[in-house]
Structure formats: structure tokens, C-alpha cells
């Protein structure tokens, strides 16, 4: 159809690849983020010709990333040796995303972690976050706010320890 003009997929990877990688790192940790990223873009590539040309591509990609991240976590838990206290989401140094922050995001409850990733990392509005997580936009907003509040309790300290003065917000 001549009316429908989807950009070449390479442009989609160019424009959104970095954001999707940050989202994957925030949601599943650096160790399996790259597999989640690859599965996300392969799945997106497969479905791409059917995407309406006016769709919100970023929300679409984050929705796929959410599913693929859950798949990766489930696969990881199946493989995991059941011992007393296995850390579910190990914090591995991730170039580009602050190591301390990755560890602290990993410690958040699932909903809060996902809401923070999709709203603050991917920049999606709360109604789009709610579409991905289920529930209302207000609930997504609360989960993200709770997550940020928890991160704020610890993150400025770690920033100060590195010699970066933690800025207070107005």
C-alpha cells in the first residue's frame, strides 16, 4: 500500500536500540539484557510489516521487551540451582548504566522496577505503561513513584561516595 510507509527497520534499530538496551538492563539486569535485547528486535522484525504506520514504535518495542524480559527471567529461574538465597537479578557492571543504580533497581519489587524502567528510562507516558503492566495509569504512576522514592533513599548516598555531589531537587 502506498499510503502506508514504514521506515526501513534499520532506522528503528538506530533510533530505539539504545533505549531498549537501557530498559532491558533495568528490568532484567546487565547479564541477560543483551539476550533480551536481541530477542526483542528479532520478534519486532518478524511482526514489523504488520505494524500500523502511525503506531507508537517506542511503546510497541517496550511492550515486546517486557515480554522477552519475562521470558529470559523465567528461563533463568528454571536453570537456577535452588539454594537458600540465590539473588534473582544479579548486578553485573553495565557500561553506560550506573552499576550501583542497576543493583538498586534490581532490588525493587517487579511492578516498581518495570514502572520505573518504562516511564523513566523509556520515557513512556503512564497510560502506555499501564497498557504494558495491566491496571490503571494511576497505579502505574504510584508504582513508579514508589520505585523512585526507594531509589532516592540510597542512590544520592552512592553518588556522594563516588565524589559526585548529590543534587537536591526543588
Amino acid at each position, binding site marked *: 500500500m*502506498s499510503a502506508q*510507509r*514504514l*521506515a*526501513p*527497520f*534499520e*532506522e528503528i*534499530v538506530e533510533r530505539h*536500540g*539504545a533505549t531498549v*538496551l*537501557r530498559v532491558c538492563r*533495568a528490568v532484567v539486569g546487565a547479564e541477560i539484557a*543483551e539476550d533480551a*535485547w*536481541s530477542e526483542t*528486535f*528479532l520478534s519486532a*522484525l*518478524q511482526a*514489523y*510489516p504488520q505494524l500500523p504506520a502511525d503506531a507508537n514504535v517506542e511503546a510497541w518495542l517496550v511492550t515486546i521487551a517486557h515480554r522477552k524480559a519475562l521470558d529470559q527471567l523465567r528461563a533463568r529461574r528454571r536453570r537456577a540451582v535452588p539454594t537458600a538465597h540465590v539473588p534473582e537479578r544479579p548486578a553485573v557492571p553495565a*557500561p*553506560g*548504566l*550506573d552499576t550501583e*543504580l542497576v543493583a538498586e533497581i534490581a532490588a525493587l519489587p517487579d511492578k516498581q522496577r518495570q514502572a*520505573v524502567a518504562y516511564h*523513566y*528510562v523509556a*520515557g513512556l507516558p503512564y497510560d502506555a505503561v499501564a497498557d504494558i503492566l495491566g491496571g490503571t495509569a494511576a497505579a502505574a*504512576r504510584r508504582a513508579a*513513584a514508589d520505585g*523512585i*522514592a526507594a*531509589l*532516592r533513599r540510597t*542512590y*544520592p548516598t552512592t*553518588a556522594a561516595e563516588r565524589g*559526585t555531589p*548529590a*543534587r*537536591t*531537587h*526543588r
Partner: protein
Amino acid sequence: MSPVPTDLSDALTSPDDPATLDRLRARLAGTADDRELLDVAYRTLDSPLGSLLLAATDRGLVRVAFAGEGHDAVLQELADRVSPRVLLAPGRLDTAARELEEYFGQARSAFDLPLDLRLATGFRREVLEQLRGVAYGTTTSYAGLAARTHSPRAVRAVGSACATNPIPLVIPCHRVIHSDGTMGGYRGGPAAKRTLLALEAA
């Protein structure tokens, strides 16, 4: 909503290292090809005529484009007319790139590449099929080329088939000139056509 401290907000949106993304993108192109999801692979090639865009489907080379055509516009055209599953994937074009480099280095006079002519239909396609028989270092006229088709009087239509040749260089539309010896047009510009004819005459 509680505002996010600037350092936290910066950290959440910090840029990723390009090296990781390049590696992931290369891996994506390879896996997409393995899973038969790579409908159009492309790469660019530096040449004496400027940067060339090469694109291939699973059937073969489908497009060669000059810089003057605008590579972004050509990729969009491929997305529209072939498939939007378009990725930078140089591997599929290794042979085409090598043969073109040999051609420009005067080490090759014929291409041995699978071609996908889907961007040319009907009479234009027939013209391109005939064009493939015009040998290196020779020229023919638009009228002469028309004479080899089912419509020997369709000289103007032959001209437009050459002008819209989706795989220039490999399908040698530069070897078609006017009956009076003047050059005629070329998708890559008249200077490119002169350069190619000089290269082949040397």
C-alpha cells in the same frame, strides 16, 4: 508526582556505549538472516563514482544506487516496494562488493552475481534482460537495444527502462548511447557514464 533528582534522572537515561550496540546490531543482522527474517540486506561501498548503496534480497542483488539518488530515499523505496524488513547486513553483499571493486580496478569485465529484477516489470524488464548481453568495452544505441526486444520501435521506452535500471553497473545501462554518438542520460549522472566508458575502453 515526586520529582526525580537530576543525578538519578541522568543515570536512568545515560547513553549506552556505542560498541555494545554495534555488536548487538551485527548479531541481530546475522540471526535475522539465519531465521529468514532479513528481506533486504544492504551495505555501502566506496567507489570512484562516490558511495554506492548495494541491496540484496534472498534471491540476489536487487538495487545499486548512486549517492546522488539519496541513500535514505532508496532505502525507503526498498521498504515500500520490497519489504520494510531492511537491515544493514554487509555479509550478504560480500561477493557483490568484491566483484564491483574488481570491476573498478579493471580486473573484472563481467559480473557473476544472482540478480533480483523484481523492481523492473514488463517491457522494462525485457530491456534489462537484453542489456545484460551488451559486452564490456562495447556500446549499443537505444534503437539497437530496442531492436533486440519484442517492440523494436519502442526506442523511447527503452530509454526510460535504462534511466530506471535498478541495478546499474552490473546491468550495464551505461553502455547504451545515442545513435549519433552522444552520451545520453545516466542515473549516476553524465560524468559517471563518461568515467565508466573510459574505464572500459582503457
